[in-house]
Every structure is written in structure tokens, then in C-alpha cells.
């Protein structure tokens, strides 16, 4: 179940502690999100896990085997896509991919087949013979992801994969990540796009100032911070009377009218829906929609970290520029 384990990772650069006692596990087959603002230690953590930077202290394990001192033992089954495309500008798409495949010892015919297959999968077949420097940002990012999975790694590290690219390319990349994960690749994703983490990740860790402040599945994180149950009802022919009727009949709930057609029922305990529907039916109102309102990941992130989501948004806009 556990593919990768980080145990008490510490990384110091002179006086600065970039990663401070970070521990977590990544389960096989999941998309694990690492969410935090710029400078939180996301990239440094990836560098420590992939052997690009040395640990000041702590241990890393892959499939139960420690590789802290000998990262080369693990690098063969890892794929890494950095936050900036780092392929060779002079080489074309196919050359870049076959070169990356050769670094993992793949024989010529297999690397050529794999490169062509990936270019097709990533919608880059027509640009395979063009130098990398002529690619758009989105195309560059896609080819960099293709290079990261050319050797079919067990775990793929994606550092801010959609930062700084256009909306259409970002959507495509998110779909590709889901597709790769469905194909069996475990994904370690760092992002400061809260919505991206919410949409893609099975489990999420919040990192701030080099420290891991919370970790869990989306449901667990939400549940932890859901202090009350909020039920929103869309009601036809309700008038203002329906909300009053419900409030009178169910005093243990707080009932608020949101607009002409919607009302919210709030309770500290779970809400029983059927009696509410019955009461509304008695006064001739019909319920067309009922949904539980959950706190968003953004709200949870703000509560846990104390960092306003607007700050994260500003940072990513800044990074785009």
C-alpha cells in the first residue's frame, strides 16, 4: 500500500531551514497533493525525495527500502517533472524524448516506439520534429511530462504542473494526470492552486514554512473542519412562508431564506431530510433540489494555515508574470 515514505525530513541551507521535520507516506496508486504557498518547501521536498538535494537529516524509503544515502537506487523508478520545462532547446520533441529514455538505459527501438506513442498521447505528433525552443509554454510543459514518464516510472513527481500556462493547456494537463494515474502511476503533485488539489488529489498535505501542518484525504480534511451541517433546498412556490413554517415545526434547526427560491437549514447535528420534505409538501411547496453544503478546501486551508487564499492567488498571478 505504502509506496514512498518520508521520515522526519530536514533540509538546512546555512541558517535557513527550508524543510523542517516533514513526515508522510504516499500510497501506491494515489495522487498525493502537496499544497502550500511559495517558499513553503514544496520543491525542496521533491528535491530531497528524488535525490537532487541531500538531506540534512531524516530518511526516505521506496517500497520499504531506505534510499537516503543512495538515491541512484531509487531514481530508475521515479519520474520528475520540474516547475520549469528543462528539456534541451536545440533538440526536437522526438530527440528530447529518446535522449531521456536512453538515460534510463532503454534500447533504441523501444525508446523510439515509446517516444512516438507519447507524442501521440499528448497531442504533439505534428510537432515531434520541431526544435523544443519553438514550442509554446503549454506544449513545452506537456513534452516535459512525457519525458518524465518515458521510462514508465512507478511514481511521478509533478512540481506545479499547470503554473504559468494557458487555461486550455492546464485543463489538458489535468486530464493527462488523471489518465496517467488511472493507468497505475502514483503521482506526487505540488501545487498552490487549491482548486487543482481539490479536483485531482486523493490525499492532500498542507505545508507552510517548511512544516507539514495537516495531511489527509479530502473528506477527512473537510470533516475535521465541518462544525455544522448545512442543507440547501431549492423550493418551488414557497413564498416567504415556507421558511417560517419549517422554523416553527423544527426549532432545533436554524432556517434562513437565501433568495426567492432557496433556503438553508443549519444544524449542529445531521439533518433528517424526509420530515422537512413532508412539511413543505403540506403547505403546497415542492422541493426541486436538496444538497449538503460542505466547506471548500480553500476554507479548510485558510483555517488550518492562517494563510488567506487571496495571497496564494496573488502569488500564482505573480509567478505567471
Amino acid at each position, binding site marked *: 500500500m505504502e509506496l514512498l515514505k518520508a521520515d522526519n525530513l530536514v533540509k538546512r541551507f546555512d541558517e535557513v531551514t527550508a524543510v523542517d521535520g516533514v513526515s508522510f507516506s504516499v500510497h501506491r496508486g494515489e495522487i498525493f497533493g502537496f499544497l502550500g504557498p511559495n517558499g513553503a518547501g514544496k520543491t525542496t521536498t521533491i528535491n530531497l525525495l528524488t535525490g537532487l538535494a541531500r538531506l540534512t537529516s531524516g530518511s526516505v524509503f521506496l517500497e520499504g527500502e531506505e534510499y537516503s544515502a543512495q538515491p541512484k537506487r531509487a531514481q530508475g523508478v521515479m519520474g520528475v517533472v520540474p516547475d520549469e520545462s528543462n528539456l534541451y532547446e536545440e533538440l526536437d520533441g522526438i530527440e528530447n524524448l529518446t535522449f*531521456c529514455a536512453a538515460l534510463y*538505459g532503454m534500447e533504441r527501438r523501444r525508446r523510439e516506439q515509446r517516444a512516438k506513442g507519447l507524442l501521440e498521447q499528448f497531442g504533439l505528433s505534428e510537432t515531434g520534429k520541431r526544435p523544443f525552443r519553438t514550442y509554446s509554454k503549454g506544449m513545452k510543459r506537456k513534452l516535459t511530462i512525457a519525458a518524465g514518464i518515458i521510462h514508465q516510472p512507478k511514481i511521478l513527481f509533478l512540481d506545479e504542473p499547470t503554473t504559468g500556462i494557458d487555461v486550455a493547456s492546464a485543463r489538458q494537463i489535468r486530464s493527462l494526470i488523471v489518465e496517467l494515474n488511472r493507468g497505475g502511476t502514483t503521482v506526487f503533485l505540488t501545487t498552490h492552486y487549491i482548486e487543482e488539489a481539490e479536483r485531482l488529489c486523493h490525499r492532500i498535505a498542507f505545508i507552510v514554512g517548511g512544516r507539514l501542518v495537516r495531511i489527509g484525504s479530502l473528506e477527512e480534511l473537510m470533516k475535521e473542519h465541518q462544525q455544522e451541517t448545512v442543507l440547501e433546498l431549492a423550493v418551488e412556490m414557497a413564498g416567504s412562508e415556507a421558511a417560517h413554517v419549517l422554523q416553527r415545526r423544527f426549532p432545533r434547526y436554524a432556517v434562513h431564506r437565501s433568495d426567492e427560491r432557496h433556503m438553508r437549514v443549519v444544524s449542529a447535528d445531521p439533518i433528517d431530510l424526509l420530515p422537512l420534505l413532508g412539511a413543505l409538501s403540506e403547505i403546497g411547496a415542492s422541493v426541486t433540489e436538496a444538497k449538503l453544503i460542505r466547506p471548500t478546501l480553500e476554507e479548510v486551508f485558510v483555517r488550518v494555515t492562517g494563510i488567506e487564499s487571496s495571497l496564494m492567488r496573488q502569488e500564482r498571478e505573480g509567478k505567471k508574470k
Partner: protein
Amino acid sequence: MSSWTAFQAIVAKDMKTYYLKPPNISWGLIFPFAWMLMFYLRSQTPLDIRELLPGVMAMSILFGTTSMLAVTITFERRSRSFERLLLAPLELSLLMLAKTGGAILFGILNAFVPVLVAAFLVDLSGVSWPAVIGSIFLIAATSTFLGLFISVAVHEVFEAQTFSNFFRFPMLFLCGLFIPIGNLPVYLRPLSYILPLTYGADILKTAINKEGALPPWISFSVLFFFSGVSFFSTYGISNANGCFE
């Protein structure tokens, strides 16, 4: 086998991406011609190409290899494409050998440009080619490892250039190619004997004109020693300090 595939790919990529580019090839052609012309104008005597050949070959290798490797590695570190190599399951020693392999090949090709030109102009019979090839290889190797050392020590491309010159020019004037070591001030002579180029140039002089001052076996041994020491000390420094982090 898989490491060999990666090694070949890195050498081939570097040759294609950096070394076999028109500006570098033209550097290999123009540089020897410029030096030959300079000496011809200075001496005001009929040009003895065969006498100039060892110096021009040694310089072509030295200038071609030291800065090229230092600049390409520094450039790749700046553009982060070097990370791609560090993330591959290749031992650092093999990666360093692969990166230097392309530069050594380039240095060897550079050295043969003046040889080819000279072959059309003068009689090169009597030259000991095994000694020439051996010394070309070892000068290229020691110069390249010097470039590797520079790439570990600097962070910017311009620093790599400056640092290369800091080593290259003193080497050029102290190695006995243009000023015989015996004519140098006494206090500078020991410096000449700690420069690998002194021994490479001496082998070339012996092999081409039979004018060397040292027995070739001593020069070859010293060059092997320099190659080993410079490679393994650079490897040791980068491995211990994480210079490529």
C-alpha cells in the same frame, strides 16, 4: 549495458548540441590559422610549419576543451537541464566521464585540423603518430578535466570563461611552447613542471620534430597521473560537497 546506453547518448547529444556547431568548427579552423599567421609575421623568416605544429595543436586542444566543457556544464546547470542527468540512475563518476567524453572528442578533432592543413603544405614523414595520438588524447583529457573542475567551481557562464582564461594563458606561456623553459626566469621554471601542458607539448615536439627535452615515457606517466588526479579530485569535491545540487 544500460549505463553504456546512457553514456553514449550523453556524448552524442553534447556533440550534436554544443560541439559540432558551425561557430565551434570555425573556431577549430580559424584559431590555428591565426596563430600560424601571427608567428609568421613576427619572425619575418620563412614559415616552418612543422616547427609550429606542436604548439598550434596543443593550443587548439587547450582552448577548445577547457572553456567548452566549463561553459556547457555551467549553461546546463543554469537552464536546469543538468538536473535531468542528475535525476537519471547514473553514477556521478559515469556522468562526469560522459560529459567529458564529448569535450575530449572535440579536442581531438580540433587538434587534427592543423595536422590536416599541414599535411597539404609540408612533408610529415618521420612523425611518430602513436606518440602524437597518445599525447593529443592526454592533453585533451587533462584540459577537459580542468574544464570540469572549473564547472564545479562556478555558477555563471561568464565566470566559467573568466576562470578558464585564468588557467589557460599562464599555461600557454609557461609550458615551453613559445619560450623554452630554460629561458624562463629561474623562479618560474618549477611552475612549468606542474603544468600538464608542458608534458603534452614536449611529447608532441619529440614526436614531430624530435626536439623534446624529456623522455616520452616520463611525460606520458606524468600526464596519466595528472588526468587521474584532476578527475578524481573533481569527483571527490563534487561528491562530498554536493556541488551539482
